[in-house]
C-alpha cells in the first residue's frame, strides 16, 4: 500500500492505493493519519478510490482514525468510496458514522 498526501486549502488529502488489510496496509494508514495530525492538520480527507481490498482490520483503522481525529478536535471525512467499501461499511453499520463525498471540491468546501 502506498499513500499519496497533498494539501489543498488547508485540507490534507490522503490517497491510499492498494490493500488496507491486516499486517501492512492497516499500519500504513494509521501512520499516515497520525503524521497528518502531528503536522497540525485539522481537516483530513481520505480518498478511498484507490483501495482495492479492505478487511475488518482496515475498517478498524478507519474507525480509529475517525475517533482519533474527533478526540483531537480534527475532522476526518471520506471521498470516492468504491462500491465494495460502501458495502463493507454498511454491513457493520458504519456508513452513517462517516461524512462521505463523491466530489473532491465539494468535500474540501464542506470543512
Amino acid at each position, binding site marked *: 500500500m502506498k499513500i499519496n498526501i497533498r494539501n489543498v486549502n488547508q485540507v490534507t488529502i490522503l490517497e491510499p492505493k492498494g490493500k488496507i*488489510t*491486516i*499486517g*501492512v496496509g492497516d499500519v500504513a494508514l494509521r501512520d499516515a493519519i497520525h503524521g497528518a495530525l502531528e503536522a497540525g492538520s485539522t481537516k483530513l480527507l481520505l480518498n478511498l478510490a484507490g483501495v482495492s*481490498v479492505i*478487511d*475488518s*482490520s482496515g*475498517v*478498524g*483503522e478507519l*474507525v*480509529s482514525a*475517525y*475517533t482519533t481525529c474527533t478526540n483531537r478536535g480534527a475532522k476526518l471525512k471520506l471521498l470516492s468510496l468504491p*462500491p*465494495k467499501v*460502501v*458495502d*463493507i461499511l*454498511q*454491513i*457493520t*453499520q*458504519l456508513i452513517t*458514522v462517516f461524512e462521505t463525498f463523491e466530489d473532491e471540491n465539494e468535500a474540501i468546501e464542506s470543512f
Partner: protein
Amino acid sequence: MLFSLNPKPMEATAQQFHVVVSSRYENIDVVQTLLGEALDCVSASEQECHWIDLALREALANAIKHGNGENPEKRVRVDGRVTAEGVWIEVEDEGDGFTPEKVEDPLAPENLLSPSGRGLLYIRNAMDQVELRPGPKGGTLMFLFKELGASNAEESEGS
C-alpha cells in the same frame, strides 16, 4: 516405487487445495491466490469472489492473530474445495479455541466505534454457512460454505 503421495487427482469439475502455512499475514495473500485460481476455474462471479475472498481473509487473520497469537512457529491449515455448485473452506489453527457465543456483538451501540471485533460478522455475511468447532488438538476449526451461481439478490446482500 519412488512415490506414495496418493494425491487427489486433477479433476475438471472440482478444484481442491490443501496447504499449511506459518502464522504470517503475508501468507494470507498466498492462500488467497490459490482460492482465486480455484474460483477462476468455475467462473464464479466477481461479487462471489469478492465476498469469499473477504471471508477467507478474515478467517485466516483470526487464525493467525487470535488462534496462533502471531507466533510464526504455529501453523494454519487451509483446505478448500470449489465446484460449480459452491465453495467449501476449512481453516484450522493451533490456538486454544474460543467460545463464539461470548464474542461481543459489533453492532451493539457501545461497540459500533470499536477498533476491532467485526471479522466474524463479515464472515457470516459473506458465506451461506459458518461453523466454528474445537479442533482435534484444541485449536479452532472453521468451516465455511457458500453456494455459487445463486441469485443476484442473494449475492449482493451487502449492497
